[in-house]
């Protein structure tokens, strides 16, 4: 069950994992992008965490809204409007308290904003299998890891990496990795029933 408290805990944990892996995310992005995904994400999650410190929340919806604005405003790269749109859409259905509904809304927000689908070597390649596994009630760490690894053989057809064409093959997509941290943090919390 999603509650206000465990939503804040989940996203706080996400922020911590991102900060710990800043250098790794930058390194992944330097291989097929401009090397800033870690720094971008850290700017975003630090703004988010500062808001969490400063505010009291009455509903998960507000937590998602604040997260959306922090990530949209502070990331500065393509992942800003994408994560921003995801959390904005999640806020709209947060009142269902249903994780599958909420994350699927987030996934659709990313697809709409990025005009992308699965297999384009983006964060969608993690969000989609995670939503599917959650719906089947069997999300595990290994499903998340597999989804990240599965971005390696793909050729990027969206985002900055798409300008590399064939040269994008063989590397992990940085946005897929940062999204994996979001879902690892989710597993670490008590949000998933059953």
């Amino acid at each position, binding site marked *: 069950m999603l509650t206000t408290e465990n939503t804040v805990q989940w996203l706080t944990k996400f922020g911590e994992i991102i900060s710990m892996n800043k250098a790794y995310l930058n390194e992944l992005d330097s291989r097929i992008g*401009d090397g*800033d995904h870690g720094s*971008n994400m850290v700017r975003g999650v630090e703004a988010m965490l500062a808001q969490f410190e400063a505010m009291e929340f009455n509903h998960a919806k507000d937590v998602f809204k604040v997260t959306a604005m922090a990530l*949209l*405003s*502070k990331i*500065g*790269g*393509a*992942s*800003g*409007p*994408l994560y*921003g*749109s995801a959390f904005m859409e999640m806020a709209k259905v947060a009142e269902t308290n249903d994780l599958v509904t909420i994350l699927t809304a987030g996934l659709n927000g990313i697809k709409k*904003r*990025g005009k992308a689908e699965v297999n384009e070597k983006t964060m969608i390649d993690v969000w989609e299998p995670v939503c599917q596994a959650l719906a089947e009630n069997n999300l595990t760490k290994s499903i998340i890891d597999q989804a990240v690894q599965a971005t390696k053989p793909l050729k990027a057809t*969206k*985002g*900055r990496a798409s300008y590399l064409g064939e040269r994008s093959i063989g590397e992990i997509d940085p946005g897929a990795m940062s999204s994996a941290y979001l879902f690892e943090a989710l597993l670490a919390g008590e949000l998933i029933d059953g």
Partner: protein
Amino acid sequence: MADQRSIGIVIASHVEELAKGTYLLLQESAPDVSITYVGGTDDGEIGSSFEKILTAVEANDADELFAFYDLGSAKMTLEIVQETSDKTIHLMDTALIEGAFAAAALLQGNYSLTEIKKQLVPLTIK
């Protein structure tokens, strides 16, 4: 007939200097068109900023705008600004400099919105 110069232009780039350079180029040929520009993140680094793009849109004298951008993240941020602002924004997928330059010159020449959009079609690259 409505004065087309009531339509403005906003330029959003990843780099402040690129946005400014594009503005300088356009402004020379379209002195009567309201053109605002924005580039880089809040910290002045390479990237895009939601607040700065929103400010450039709001600061434009016109309530209806053509918007031009360089790369994908500026486009996606512009789309969110488009959904947030009360202004009417025509987001153009043309080559940044050629598209913006053509729009500026045509607005200065008082061409209609429909005519300008038609003329920009061949410059669409994204």
